[in-house]
């Protein structure tokens, strides 16, 4: 199905995004499944309270038994009774570089996941479909690692001071100039943690009397930053431009809620690729709206920088737009660059302001030098400035892998969410028991996947999420696809009815889409 979008003239390329509707039977069975688990949960709690079953939880100290309890029993109900049962799908310890293949430490549990013991054996060469290694820069050999090793022996591992005091190294200045050149903006600033970049800079940009319009499915760091800023927050439906436009119109016409004074400024928070849905933001429409209503755009490219666009410069290049249209371009170095940290890019006044007033510049330690060097080398590689075409080749390989993998999975009959070009591939599982089963079955077949359930996703929409990488060869993908096919048949995961009815695409009011069926 090709969607010809309402604002068709803004898109220079087809935008194929689909979220197939949950089949009715599956939804009902999922609720039944959760109901059964809840009943059993109550039963087990009852047995634990009456000492019929041993309570494995850690408990409060004897001397502090009469203090107000630290955790409400109910808050931990989900944790104790549902999460504990399938806890072995998460926090799996690895002991090699998180590349395309990874070594995992084997762990077993003799008491149903309450405690784990390591057998000492290492499971080797598991195909890694869970790490955010989009361009394959998670390597322990090669030019990036060598440069980082040199800088490590010269500078040491830590910095021991903040940017504004004595922690601003020449390496940081070099990195910021390079990032600004890479993104095509005037200037940039780098921080030590991606999460902290959002939660410490949004409060510096907006405050009381400002309005934040944030997407429904924004990441926890954006939500925390918006809350800490003290501005009013309004939420628009995921990737729904009509909902956003209505909120913008209402905000400007009616002003602040009770005083009716005009808003000081309006900031729209969106992400490049949403990591749980695999959807790409409708950037041309967002920018058109932003210009029409004179608001500011904050784009979080945590997953899309390096992963989208013909030369890896992110979602702005993917749509062929001008980076100067985005007021605040934020991103992280953890995913495509194989390092750690975050950055913000924009006009010089913005970055000067952040250098002075950002919480991170004043109170938080600056980035570690070998990490900075890794970023510098990988950015140069992607841009092609190190004299090779490795960067370009990797970006193309990732795009090919994405298209191939998604096409094959859809052909097999799984329900896959998201945009055709996003390297994040969510495969719907729905039922709680299948979450644990899928993770374990795939591990038995030497493939490491990530499964997510409530509360990261809505309660009936649990999913397995594959993160593709340029380091995956076609053979690895074919092996993975074969195993996924087997497990899909075993667990009856092929829910798709091949009628790709767009669910989340439905417009907010009565504007119609033209649809052509294949």
């Amino acid at each position, binding site marked *: 199905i090709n969607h010809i979008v309402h604002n068709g003239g803004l898109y220079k390329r087809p935008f194929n995004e689909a979220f197939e509707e949950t089949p009715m039977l599956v939804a009902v069975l999922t609720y039944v499944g959760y109901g059964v688990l809840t009943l059993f949960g109550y039963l087990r709690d009852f047995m634990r309270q009456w000492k019929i079953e041993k309570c494995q939880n850690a408990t409060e100290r004897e001397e502090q038994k009469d203090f107000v309890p630290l955790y409400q029993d109910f808050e931990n109900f989900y944790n104790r009774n549902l999460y504990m049962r399938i806890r072995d799908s998460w926090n799996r310890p690895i002991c090699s570089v998180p590349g395309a293949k990874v070594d995992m430490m084997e762990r077993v549990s003799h008491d149903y996941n309450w405690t784990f013991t390591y057998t000492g054996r290492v499971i080797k060469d598991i195909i890694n479909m869970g790490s955010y290694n989009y361009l394959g820069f998670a390597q322990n050999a090669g030019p990036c690692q060598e440069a980082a090793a040199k800088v490590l022996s010269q500078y040491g591992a830590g910095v021991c001071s903040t940017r504004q*005091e004595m922690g601003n190294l020449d390496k940081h200045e070099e990195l910021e100039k390079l990032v600004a050149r890479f993104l095509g903006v005037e200037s940039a600033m780098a921080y030590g943690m991606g999460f902290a970049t959002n939660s410490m800079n949004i409060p510096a940009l907006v405050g009381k009397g400002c309005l934040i319009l944030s997407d429904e499915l924004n*990441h926890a760091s954006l939500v925390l930053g918006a809350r800490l800023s003290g501005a009013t927050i309004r939420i628009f439906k995921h990737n729904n431009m009509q909902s956003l436009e209505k909120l913008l119109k209402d905000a400007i016409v009616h002003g602040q809620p009770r005083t009716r004074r005009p808003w000081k400024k309006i900031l729209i928070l969106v992400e490049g690729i949403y990591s749980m849905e695999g959807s790409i933001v409708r950037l041309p429409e967002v920018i058109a709206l932003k210009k029409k209503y004179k608001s500011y755009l904050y784009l979080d490219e945590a997953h899309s920088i390096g992963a989208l666009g013909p030369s890896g410069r992110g979602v702005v290049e993917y749509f062929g737009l001008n980076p100067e249209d985005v007021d605040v371009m934020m991103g992280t170095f953890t995913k495509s660059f194989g390092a750690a940290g975050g950055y913000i890019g924009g006009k010089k006044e913005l970055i000067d302001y952040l250098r002075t007033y950002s919480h991170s510049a004043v109170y938080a330690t600056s980035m570690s030098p070998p990490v900075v060097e890794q970023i510098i080398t990988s950015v140069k590689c992607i841009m092609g400035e190190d004299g090779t075409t490795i960067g370009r080749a990797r970006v193309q390989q990732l795009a090919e892998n994405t298209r191939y993998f998604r096409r094959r999975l859809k052909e097999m009959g799984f329900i896959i969410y998201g945009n055709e070009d996003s390297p994040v591939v969510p495969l719907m599982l729905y039922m709680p028991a299948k979450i644990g089963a899928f993770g374990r079955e795939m591990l038995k077949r030497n493939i490491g996947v*990530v499964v997510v359930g409530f509360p990261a996703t809505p309660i009936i929409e649990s999913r397995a999420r594959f993160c593709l990488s340029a380091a995956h060869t076609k053979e690895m993908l074919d092996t993975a696809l074969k195993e996924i096919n087997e497990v899909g048949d075993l667990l009856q995961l092929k829910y798709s009815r091949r009628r790709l009815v767009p669910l989340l695409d439905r417009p907010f009011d009565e504007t119609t889409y033209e649809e052509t069926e294949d």
Partner: protein
Amino acid sequence: MAAAGQQWVLVEMVQAFYEAPTYHLILEGILILWIIRLLFSKTYKLQERSDLTLKEKEELIEEWQPEPLVPPVPKDHPALNYNIVSGPPTHIITVNGKECINFASFNFLGLLDNEKVKSAAQASLKKYGVGTCGPRGFYGTFDVHLELEERLAKFMRTEEAIIYSYGFATIASAIPAYSKRGDIVFVDEAACFAIQKGLQASRSNIKLFKHNDMADLERLLKEQETEDQKNPRKARVTRRFIVVEGLYMNTGDICPLPELIKLKYKYKVRIFLEESLSFGVLGEHGRGITEHFGINIDDIDLISANMENSLASIGGFCCGRSFIIDHQRLSGQGYCFSASLPPLLAAAAIEALNIMEDNPDIFQTLRAKCEHIHKALQGISGLKVVGESFSPALHLQLEESCGSRENDVKLLKRVVDYCMNSGIALTQARYLEKEEKCLPPPSIRVVITVEQTEKELDKAASLLKEAAQSILN
């Protein structure tokens, strides 16, 4: 049967109708007519929706002018021009092209350019690469992380430890994981900014008590107790916490921990201790303020510290009993939603811990140097020393302010520049003036490390005396 019953009811109704007084019938008739009118009238719309026409709305949208995204920053703003350090920020540091002795980096134990630490980090780099490419829950847990957590727990003699990848995020994620809306937190006025952000994110009731003033804290606790007696049901579910720092960053003194423990058991409040500056500094083996005072570590509910000072790495950790720490693995925002610590930094921290355990006499050396400089800096005209005698991070504040904060900052900058030109690297303590709850006065930060020799300490003290003489008098 049913029909007969219905007929019987109908007869009763008609009879009642005849027997009712007239005014009653008229009133009921009016009420019925009113209900019919309400049913058929249009729904009531809010005034503004129906008032503005489409054209008026478009005009409003045209007219509205937002503020610029950021206000312009003047070029000579003191915080805008950073010092550029070329090369590693070690004992001899090259700032803005000049070689100086470093009195500004929190490298207390001199582990920043320790060869063993660097080689451990190199080995880790060769094995794992740089980044972890994922949060702890999704293939971002490496065996180095697990080892570091075990070693930290063993070193601090607690059950469990949890590491974060950013020092600021450690306490800012730990507090909101336990304290929610409706809970009460008693916090010292001089608490650092990370604690303030953690408290803001938690949405709890914050009660500030005067710095290190136990009488003030007790007054607040007593007030809370009387409140509780008025509403015992609410009191039974309201959690209470006291958040203090071991060694305060803003004032350089320590908290009176034994009295706090007494208050804890008397009023049933939990204690969260932030030990960023005191970890690796206080105590016989560097275990922090609990070792300094000889207190049982289980009495403190949560100890949080960052590894960026004494351990010369990046990141932070929390340690305590498993009952408390395990909760953060699912509800600590900076832990669950953020990538894990790069393995080379974790390996560097493990090696630094090894060195700390093998050489417990460096803590004594550090303390002796702190005492030395504390004494040497006394008696500078115009500057007073703020901080305990064994604190490695001191502040030098102006004895008399010259009126405005801006002028104080300019004056202190001249002192700092004088010292930098003569080979001692110092810095002013930086704050976000509009965001801090209790803004400390402007000051110069003096940091003592184990690598500084007595001669260098004396040189620094005499240089500061000279600077104060020439600039402040």
